[in-house]
């Protein structure tokens, strides 16, 4: 019943990663930059799962869980920083955050 070829999973992961990368580079709104980072992390997770499926092993899903934990911690801290910057500067422009002094 199961006939998905592993490389098609990897190709989709590559496409998603490229989209996320484009988003990180092109957007100036910090919220969108964070979202694009999420897309890239998710693409990495997809690659892990595909690789795990190829080898019929649980390792891919274990790696996926580590990615999940990383993403959760990253978003919690990242959004807190975004809200803090917005409170100080009243803007979400990433260029405004270039001076990271106090």
């Amino acid at each position, binding site marked *: 019943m*199961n006939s998905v070829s592993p490389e098609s999973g990897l190709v989709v992961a590559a496409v998603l990663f490229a989209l996320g990368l484009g988003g990180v580079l092109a957007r100036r709104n910090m919220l969108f930059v964070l979202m694009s980072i999420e897309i890239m992390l998710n693409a990495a997770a997809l690659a892990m799962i595909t690789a795990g499926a190829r080898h019929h092993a649980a390792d891919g899903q274990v790696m996926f869980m580590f990615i999940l934990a990383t993403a959760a911690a990253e978003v919690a801290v990242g959004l807190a920083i975004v809200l803090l910057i917005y409170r100080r500067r009243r803007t979400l422009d990433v260029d405004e955050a270039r001076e990271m002094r106090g």
Partner: protein
Amino acid sequence: MQGLFYVSAAVAVLATALVVTRRNAAHALLYLVLSLAAVAGMFYALGAPLAAALEVIVYAGAIMVLFVFAVMVLALGREGERQESQWLRPRMWLGPAALAAVLLGELIYVLASGAAAVAGGTPVVVGPQEVGAALFGPYALGAELSSMLLLAGMVAAYHLARRKQMDEKEGER
């Protein structure tokens, strides 16, 4: 299963493309949730039901809700959309799109040339029990480390979000 995989893949790619091009943060967020759900469908088709469920529970259901909170607290509305259309001119996309396209081409080239090593072996279902055994067996150290990471993230977010102390500091300056 094949059908599920390819339809989910198409939805995921389309929704993701919409995420990076939207002007309204809430709309982009909805598309991102859709994209995550589609990726969960792909996980299921690849024989990883536990990962599929966790993708929706944790990624779409908890992490993305943090973004919803941020969007609601920031309350950007129409103003934000105008700002966004100022920032996001089509010209801005040229460089990033070219770079991302080069990277994508490279990745696909590598995948295509290495296909002989990758191909073969159709996925079978790897159930929650095997994943649990692996997670708390050989990967126990990794599990502990990621719990440390989560704790650190929680402490940091709590510290950053404490408003009172921040205002006091600003008062001193």
